[in-house]
């Protein structure tokens, strides 16, 4: 529907950002979708890894998420949740679908698959240890808390964007994030 274009977003009172402009163009222009991919592939991949996907699975699900987004790009509506939140919603669904089909690959196994993050063996070891710790602590939290923290810290979403992704109000999302962090801190306290 043409009304869902840049001007359509303007009429709703929202100002489309660069992603939304690209998403509108991506309906007919692969290059624009390519730019969106370059911008957001890492966030999607990190979210999926934070949810417990191994490297291969995260790569596969990142591809699936973008393929689905490409097919559905006509349905993206500027001026609502924003492109990034829309994309993360698709990735989240891809994770849920993929998770149902395959055994979970999480915790230390995911940490062991961590690529080199630091310039020195010491830095790499510290990074691996930190990741192992965080994945271990996350695994102890309820599913909604894991999801919210992954969206916030791995994908870099704002609380408002997270609210759109998980279908809660802004206030409820802020409370969820706050409670999740408190739970994580508590889990860390007991992690010896």
């Amino acid at each position: 529907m043409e009304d869902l274009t840049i001007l359509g977003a303007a009429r709703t009172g929202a100002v489309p950002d660069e992603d939304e402009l690209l998403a509108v163009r991506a309906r007919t222009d692969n290059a624009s979708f390519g730019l969106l991919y370059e911008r957001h592939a890492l966030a999607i991949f990190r979210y999926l890894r934070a949810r417990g996907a191994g490297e291969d699975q995260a790569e596969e699900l990142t591809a699936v998420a973008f393929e689905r987004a490409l097919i559905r790009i006509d349905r993206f509506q500027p001026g609502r949740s924003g492109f990034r939140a829309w994309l993360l919603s698709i990735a989240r669904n891809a994770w849920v679908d993929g998770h149902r089909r395959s055994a979970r690959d999480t915790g230390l196994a995911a940490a062991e698959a961590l690529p080199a993050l630091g310039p020195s063996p010491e830095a790499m070891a510290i990074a691996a240890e930190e990741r192992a710790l965080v994945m271990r602590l996350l695994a102890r939290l309820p599913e909604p808390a894991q999801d919210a923290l992954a969206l916030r810290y791995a994908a870099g979403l704002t609380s408002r964007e997270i609210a759109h992704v998980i279908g809660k109000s802004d206030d409820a999302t802020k409370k969820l994030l706050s409670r999740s962090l408190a739970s994580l801190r508590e889990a860390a306290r007991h992690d010896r």
Partner: protein
Amino acid sequence: MTAELEPRDLDDLLSRALAVDLTADARSRIRARLDAAPAARAGGRRRPRTRTIVALGLAAALLVAGTATGVHYLGEWGPVDHPATVAEIEAEITAAMADNGLPPGYSYPVAQIRAAAEMEGGRAQHVGTLNVQQHYMCAWTDYWLAATSAADESHVAAALSRIEAFPKLMLIGDPRFAMDSIRDEIAQVVAGAKAGDAAPVQELWGAACSDAMVIRP
């Protein structure tokens, strides 16, 4: 490490620990899958190549600046706040074609420009001007490439003077419509044209133009 985590420490720890890399190989593999995916688009709504290329150029042109300053200009007085009528866009197209002369014998594909600039749902202030300027750039790029290939020095010089002025076009020079990265690319095109290096000029042609966008003598 885990006994006394302050809120800020926890924030930092989460951000650091979850910032895994997506390798270049993995990124490329996914990209290859996406490049192969367009045929599966719902409804088969792909448009002809010429139309797609126009959209490519305008996708860049209509991007708001926001790289260095984070300012989203559109929110203040850019195209979004100024929807345009067909008549207004038509006037822009006419004025822009008059202001931006083409190489000898070339002409603007007016119907194509109108179709792109006046499509329902995409009408906005400056779209007509930007569309014309893109075609203008394509025509002079084409002229320079042909003249260089033919070692026609006078035509090369004529085209070069126009190419050197590309950065001053609204399409390129106005930060509302082009990001710094685009200006950097155009600067490379200008430098290449000055040096007689066809590669960056050819690259511009390949990225933003097509045979259907120029009407040659």
